[in-house]
């Protein structure tokens, strides 16, 4: 069903949204034509990407805000690193119905393999985030993963999470309406939110509830009745166990009349999604969430007005994500001093950012996966359907120590090998795998301190790269030495972006 035709006014001009936005924004952003300079560029890339190295910074600081944001929006929507080989293999899963011992063993082996794949897939994504040429697209991929949540613990077949991840990457800066439709039928999502077991004779409300509460409208903008009716519309949506693809089972679909958010008809699932997209709150809900991610978690009255304006543009563009991103990343609030170094870094920000800033290359990102997990961000497996709450929740007495321990170890000039278990202890001894390979630096990371220091003319330049806020602890070490660097990175200000 073409939701454009049904729910948008016919008298919109067929103006390209890009042109429209450029005109509007040029008019009210005074400084958007001037060169950004290092501080603003660093801020932009810390929020829109995963930090920046000193050698890449000049490319961005020579651009105006306008040009820089345009460059970010033009980033590719494809991965540049190769995923694990098994993503091309079919999923071979032992039948659940067979209760024999042999099959139980096969089940256990399957689950164990999926967990191994999970670690490999996470390593792939971390490497992608570290090396991508499209930082904003990758940032948005992670954002959508935290919005349209699916978790490996429930989905089990890791390949399905890879497929979902690629879907998110492809559409991360595309059209939100298309993205919503596509994700709702994504196999991992169908399993995660029990859509596959939602049938006419016993409806499962999980997906209907979450698509309203978490994906489009937010709490309080629908009733329990709406959820019940919507659940009926989504019946029949299922996943083929062998191909892992979406399949519509007509026999299980309730095709009766439903009334949802004031509209009545014998709606199917796609109709419901269109109804949700047509709700006035939907654009504001999405833009607000993006604002919290990119600008600030504290939203004052002026911010509210800006968000409302961007939401209007978002709707006028018929849900083009780039319209919303442009509005946010070129807003005055984004560059305001009170919004610099004011968001607590997520574990991904902290780890990937540190590697990027210190020009540390990885032979394999697998050693980072247990670190991320310990810091509270297990990729492909957020704690629940609401995703990672973020902000202050990232930092408690436990996680802050773990974060600092990681940074501390990163700076030792001898190699860091992270144990493949990495449970509650930051165990930095050589793993068994490493010993077997007889490579003196397996899974190793090396920080070339001398090379790194030699980039900077002044110590202030190095400090400004790393810290987006003034350090709070007096640094008593000699500038441009390892102890000096260590003090900077252990400063509480390093926890912020």
């Amino acid at each position: 069903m073409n939701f454009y035709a049904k729910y948008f006014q016919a008298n919109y001009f067929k103006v390209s949204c890009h042109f429209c936005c450029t005109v509007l924004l040029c008019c009210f952003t005074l400084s958007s034509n001037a060169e950004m300079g290092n501080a603003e560029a660093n801020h932009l890339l810390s929020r829109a990407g995963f930090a920046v190295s000193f050698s890449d910074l000049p490319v961005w600081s020579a651009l105006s805000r306008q040009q820089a944001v345009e460059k970010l929006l033009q980033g590719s929507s494809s991965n540049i690193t190769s995923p694990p080989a098994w993503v091309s293999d079919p999923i071979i899963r032992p039948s659940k119905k067979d209760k024999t011992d042999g099959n139980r063993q096969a089940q256990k082996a399957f689950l164990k393999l999926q967990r191994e794949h999970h670690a490999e897939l996470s390593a792939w994504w971390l490497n992608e985030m570290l090396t991508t040429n499209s930082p904003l697209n990758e940032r948005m991929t992670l954002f959508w993963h935290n919005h349209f949540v699916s978790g490996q613990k429930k989905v089990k077949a890791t390949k399905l999470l890879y497929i979902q991840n690629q879907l998110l990457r492809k559409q991360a800066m595309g059209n939100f309406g298309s993205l919503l439709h596509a994700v709702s039928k994504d196999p991992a999502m169908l399993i995660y939110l029990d859509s596959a077991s939602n049938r006419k004779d016993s409806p499962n409300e999980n997906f209907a509830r979450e698509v309203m509460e978490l994906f489009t409208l937010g709490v309080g903008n629908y009733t329990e009745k709406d959820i019940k009716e919507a659940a009926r519309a989504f019946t029949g949506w299922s996943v083929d166990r062998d191909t892992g693809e979406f399949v519509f089972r007509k026999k299980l679909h309730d095709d009766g009349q439903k009334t949802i958010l004031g509209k009545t008809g014998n709606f199917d699932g796609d109709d419901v999604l269109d109804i949700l997209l047509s709700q006035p709150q939907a654009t504001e809900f999405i833009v607000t969430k993006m604002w919290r991610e990119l600008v600030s978690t504290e939203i004052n009255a002026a911010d509210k007005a800006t968000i409302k304006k961007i939401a209007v543009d978002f709707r006028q563009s018929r849900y083009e994500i780039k319209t919303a991103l442009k509005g946010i990343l070129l807003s005055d609030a984004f560059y305001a001093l009170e919004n610099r170094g004011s968001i607590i870094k997520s574990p991904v920000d902290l780890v990937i950012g540190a590697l990027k800033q210190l020009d540390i290359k990885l032979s394999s990102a697998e050693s980072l996966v247990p670190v991320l997990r310990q810091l509270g961000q297990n990729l492909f497996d957020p704690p629940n359907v609401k995703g990672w709450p973020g902000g202050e929740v990232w930092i408690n007495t436990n996680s802050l120590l773990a974060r600092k321990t990681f940074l501390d170890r990163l700076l030792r000039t001898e190699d860091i090998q992270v144990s493949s278990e990495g449970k509650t202890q930051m165990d930095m001894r050589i793993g068994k795998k490493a010993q077997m390979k007889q490579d003196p630096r397996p899974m190793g990371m090396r920080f070339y301190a001398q090379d790194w220091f030699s980039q900077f003319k002044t110590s202030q330049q190095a400090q400004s790269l790393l810290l987006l806020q003034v350090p709070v602890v007096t640094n008593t070490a000699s500038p441009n030495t390892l102890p000096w660097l260590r003090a900077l990175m252990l400063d509480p200000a390093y926890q912020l972006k």
Partner: protein
Amino acid sequence: MLRRDFLKAATASMSVALVPKPVLAALINSSQYNNLLILVELKGGNDGFNTVIPFANSAYYQLRPKIAIPRDTVLQLSQSIGLNPALKALMPIWQANELGVLQGVGYADASLSHFRSIEIWDTASKSNEYLEDGWLGRAFEKSPPPQAFTADGVVMGSPEIGPMLGATARTIVLASEAQFKRQAKLASHADQAGNKAMQHVLRIENDILQAASKLGGDVVLKTDFPKHAFGSICKNACQLAAQKSPVAAIRLTLSGFDTHQNQVKMHANLLTQLAEGLSALRAGLIETNRWNSTFIMTYAEFGRRAKENQSGGTDHGTANMHFALGGKVRGGLLGEYPNLNSLDGVGNVRHTVDFRSIYASVLQQWWGADSLAVLGGNFKPVELIKT
């Protein structure tokens, strides 16, 4: 989600005169915090009906033809109520009259969602209200435990701060004391300044330094603790309770209770761990002379469905049965078992006591606190402590 100022909400609905402003020092006499509160979270939603069993009620067996606990294995507490045999380690505590069984604990318009319902329990909110701070976090904010304490609260077995979340509450997430002290060397000394995010980071740095400086060297216990994860955190709790610089509250988490499938064996394992851990904890607290000043209470996001499902398990439910234990705890069956013959449209029972009544009782009877100010409402207390 809007944070409602619960005092304003209380003003609207109460005819009782309120304390006009939260008065910082007066709510809890700080020496009352020498009474320790230990919460045990049964994460996932423990199945109360198979824990505290109405073995004389035929409805129980009709609702659960496959998974009901056989009558002849039930550990009888009365003519009609008994415990799952996996809880046999709790029987000496029952016989000493130090184990209270809180029946029918829940709340109106219950949420069947894990994260929403535990949020309600942790923040002591109404089911349609969204509060940010935990109920203990609020208590600690209004009446801070003594500065000399290692921390206000400690959580173990889960990274979530839950009921202790509060703007000024000092809570430590503790995996191991030794590891904590070692890592705490990385914490920074700095004054509170800067933006909101920075202030949060600095506050946590400070909490770490404070706790590390006070955590009191390993207390050597003669009591044996079970070797499983829950047993370990029970041991840690006991050591914490015994040291010179105490804490006001500890929360232990035992996970795995979301038993949608094939629950009988798994549930028995969990209950065994629970009973063994609590039993050892009691022995350790007796050994270190803290049993009479400790109040232990279980809680969970919800109970489970009265009727079993088609996978040999149970789905999310509402009212639950919980345990209270301690040297001064009033033993016995408290409250009223939920009525299995009166199920709602989803198949869930009605609660018979609001969980906030339990909280109110703990605040009032254990810490001498003004529970109205902490909970934002008057809740009929339950007699939990021996008089």
